[in-house]
């Protein structure tokens, strides 16, 4: 077993685009679920809208990469309004079912061959990197050290990702300590009490849905920045993985989602190198390496079950600040 490669793969995932995308998506979900108490199970839909909005703007309309990113963000806000207006009056588990259905509708629309010209159907979209790479301020070369060694393009993605995660976390932290944030948390605790104070609960919920959705869409764009957009990524399992990351870190916290995303991906990267290595060295008999890599998703599921039962507030959370424990 080559511990060097296993540990280096694990260390790399600490700062991978996937980790930063998950951190942003989980932060958006924290605004929805952790702070506003909205059971949004359509977070994959927001990520898809962001990523496709970005890629389609570049490929079909020939926009610059940053205007395209703005288009992705606006599209996510519109998606939040379309999804929120009919559904936000519903009770918790109804909302969960509707949002999961809405995300699936979005995915099916991107997957169908009817719009293949624009969406690329099952192949997805790719080859939209020219504008982003042209804007790279870093000259050609290698950056970083050890497992964190990048070429100039990877480094540019990394810098953008880290800056976006930091800005989003700062924004959510300020927001949740503002009067607006206190109303939102009040809605989570007792909607009727907030309504009795004369606040328009529905309007606050829509705002929370838009803000969280936009942050998740930025996550989707970061996910798409270095690679490609494929409809099979945005399945309901992606939503569940983001939920796992969020609950792991702590739903009603600002740094919990970031910590959860990092732990989630570090563990995933470790297991995806470690389990096949176990198989190769004959420690796991009767298991093929393909089977070994499905095992880590089994572990994600078991982890989620144990987490929700034994530590629903997550690593950083406070048990008093979690409505679903009631």
């Amino acid at each position, binding site marked *: 077993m080559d511990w060097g490669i296993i540990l280096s793969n694990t260390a790399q995932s600490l700062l991978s685009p996937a980790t930063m995308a998950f951190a942003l998506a989980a932060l958006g979900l924290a605004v929805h679920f952790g702070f506003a108490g909205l059971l949004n199970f359509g977070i994959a839909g927001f990520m898809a809208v962001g990523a496709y909005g970005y890629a389609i703007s570049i490929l079909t309309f020939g926009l610059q990469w940053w205007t395209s990113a703005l288009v992705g963000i606006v599209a996510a806000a519109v998606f939040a309004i379309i999804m929120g207006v009919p559904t936000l009056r*519903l009770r918790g*588990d109804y909302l969960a*079912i509707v949002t*999961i259905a809405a995300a*699936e509708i979005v995915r*099916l629309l991107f997957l169908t061959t009817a719009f293949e010209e624009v969406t690329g159907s099952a192949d997805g979209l790719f080859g939209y990197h020219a504008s982003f790479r042209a804007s790279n301020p870093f000259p050609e070369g290698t950056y970083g050290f050890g497992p964190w060694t990048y070429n100039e393009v990877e480094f540019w993605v990394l810098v953008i990702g880290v800056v976006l995660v930091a800005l989003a976390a700062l924004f959510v932290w300020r927001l949740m300590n503002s009067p607006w944030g206190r109303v939102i948390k009040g809605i989570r605790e007792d909607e009727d009490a907030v309504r009795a104070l004369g606040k328009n609960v529905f309007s606050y919920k829509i705002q929370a849905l838009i803000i969280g959705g936009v942050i998740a869409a930025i996550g989707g764009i970061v996910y798409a920045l270095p690679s490609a957009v494929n409809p099979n990524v945005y399945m309901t399992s992606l939503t569940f993985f983001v939920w796992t990351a969020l609950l792991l870190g702590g739903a009603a916290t600002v740094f919990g989602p970031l910590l959860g995303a990092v732990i989630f991906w570090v563990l995933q990267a470790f297991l995806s190198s470690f389990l096949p290595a176990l198989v190769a060295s004959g420690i796991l008999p009767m298991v093929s390496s393909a089977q070994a890599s*499905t095992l880590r998703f089994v572990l*994600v599921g078991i982890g*989620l079950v144990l987490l*929700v039962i034994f530590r629903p507030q997550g690593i950083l959370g406070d048990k008093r600040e979690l409505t679903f424990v009631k």
Partner: protein
Amino acid sequence: MSKNTSSRIAQGVTNTLKIAIVSFFALMGAFVASPALADSVGEEFDYRIAGNVKSQGDPLEGVRIDVSGNGFTSSVATDSDGKWSIGVPQDGEWTVSLAVETLPADVEVGDEELSRGVSIGPSGSVIQNFIFGQSERALISFTDQLVSRLIYGLNFGLMLGLAAIGLSLVYGTTGLSNFSHAELVTFGALMALFFSVALSLPLWIAFPLALLASAGLGWAQDAALWRPLRKRGLGLVQLMIVSIGLSLAARYLMQFFVGGGTQQLPGASAIKIPLFGAVALSIVDLASMGISLVVIVVFALWLTFSRTGKATRAISDNADLAAASGIDVDRVVRIVWIISSVLAGLAGILWAYFRPGIKWDMGEKILLLMFAAVVLGGLGTAFGALIGAIIVGLLVETSALFIPSDLKYLGALVLLIAILLVRPQGLLGRKERVG
């Protein structure tokens, strides 16, 4: 002058001869060249364009396909199955054209484009089929198509109903929106595969054994997980997320055992018998509808008239009141878990024939349709779920007449959202259920 004329004639003759010889060699060339065209060329390249050529469902052999673009051209002739495959040196845009002169004379080209642009994506390959004689389909009248779709939809709806009833019963008695119900559907199908294919038992033993295994799983799930969690006092949202975790774990565990491929139950390729109009059903389809109907009727009688059935409905209405009037809630809930697992397992076996094929994530594909059925009928009402499922089944199948068939689940999902907008309690639900 006469010399001139004769030389001109001579020239004319030579020209004619030349043309004749050239065409002769061209013909010869064509004859010699055709066998040289394999059904698969360019194996040495990493990128691949492949496809099928068919006319009215029959494969066409020896049709020439040309691929050009990016400074590269290649040709191939289809094999006896109508298949062809061409390797190309790079991805990106390519033009695929079918040589019309190599088509048999009786093939109707119709509005099928013979030259098309394709692009090779990250997968490294792309499929481009030429299917002729499809326009004949339009000859089937719209009414006939509709009738045929309605019957398929009814079959699908009944099967979906079996699964949705279980989901609704569990919700009614315990309040749990069970996302892992889909895995019970897959489990039933997998067990049927295990007993009938791996152990080679006859179907009449294999399927009851599969349902018995489903019942065992339902009992074990309640005994080992859900009952202790209820005693622990977990909230409904927490329970729902537990079911999501369980669904992930169970789904990938099943992939662990059966892999990512699709497998068939015995008799899955039964011949479709034309019945009337455009309706053609196989024996399996008919048996499937029959079994669904019988099981649903038996279940309805049980729920309406038996003591446990009445207790189940009482708990769905008001669990505390039911407990206070002497109903053993835990016992009834356990029976409900067993029944819904068996119904889901049966739905899984039937769906394995309907799709057709068994895959590790087959249940998840219809989970949202089950939820749509349950919400449409009214959460927690068993008969509502059945009606909802039939409506969803009919909608899914008939909507494929109007929208692309890869969007056929879309209608059901839109209906799910729409029904929550206008009548959140569903068709048979009561208003107080909605908060």
